[in-house]
């Protein structure tokens, strides 16, 4: 086992353990923080698999933006320590059946097809500059569509937020009269 394989298994164990903690925690703040640890692990995995630019982006976007946004909303809503009532028996049973079926199907598929050979992958590294040039030469239209999607999301969020404030001020005006 080479040092790369050793690192891969350690990082995989970290990712899986912190994700399990995130999924099972009742406290939403704890769940969000352990999920941030899981995303850090994913960033390390991306670096190991030869994608340094994606590793940096994973830290910036997932850990820096998305998880902080989650924490923001959890603290704004103030139900962080309350958590939720547990799922019903039927839900748990159905979800467990679904998960077992999915995992066995995945294992059987990987065994049967081999998923591109059993040979260990050679370590390689995609140069960020080359990657960026490739992205803007071959996928410029998709990049524009993605930025348009983000713009639409921004407009939608602004609309939702404005609607709430508008409603509240109107209700506040009606109250004294």
């Amino acid at each position: 086992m080479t040092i790369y394989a050793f690192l891969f298994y350690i990082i995989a164990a970290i990712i899986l353990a912190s994700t399990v903690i995130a999924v099972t925690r009742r406290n939403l703040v704890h769940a969000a923080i352990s999920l941030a640890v899981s995303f850090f692990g994913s960033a390390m995995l991306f670096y190991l698999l030869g994608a340094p630019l994606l590793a940096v982006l994973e830290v910036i976007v997932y850990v820096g933006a998305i998880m902080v946004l989650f924490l923001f909303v959890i603290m704004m809503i103030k139900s962080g320590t309350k958590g939720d009532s547990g799922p019903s028996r039927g839900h748990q049973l159905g979800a467990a059946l679904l998960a077992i079926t999915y995992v066995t199907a995945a294992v059987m598929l990987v065994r049967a097809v081999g998923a591109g050979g059993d040979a260990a992958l050679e370590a390689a590294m995609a140069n960020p500059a080359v990657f960026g040039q490739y992205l803007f030469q071959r996928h410029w239209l998709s990049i524009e569509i993605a930025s348009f999607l983000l713009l639409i999301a921004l407009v939608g969020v602004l609309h939702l937020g404005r609607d709430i404030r508008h409603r509240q001020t109107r209700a506040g005006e009606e109250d004294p009269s």
Partner: protein
Amino acid sequence: MIVPYSHILLLSALLFVLGMLCAVTRRNLIMVLLGLEIMLNASAVAFVGAALRWQQIEGQAMVIFILAVAAAEVSIGLALIVFAYRRTGSLDPQSIKTLFATERT
């Protein structure tokens, strides 16, 4: 030499199952959204592994778009959650459904 591609695929499958369990069983809208994030991240791991396996940079380009979709999805989703919470005062999907239904009548 790193591990075979099948091990990366199994890791991403396990992550995807965890996210799916979170999205299906938890009765809190924020946890449902967290489960969706885990699932998107699992697919990104599979794409990066495939990019290394076939020595094609295309897989890494796909992860950029997954990141963009995840960012848009989480912002819209959290705005909707805050909106629903202010209207109904609850985060339980089932009770929000009934509360919106009673508000309309």
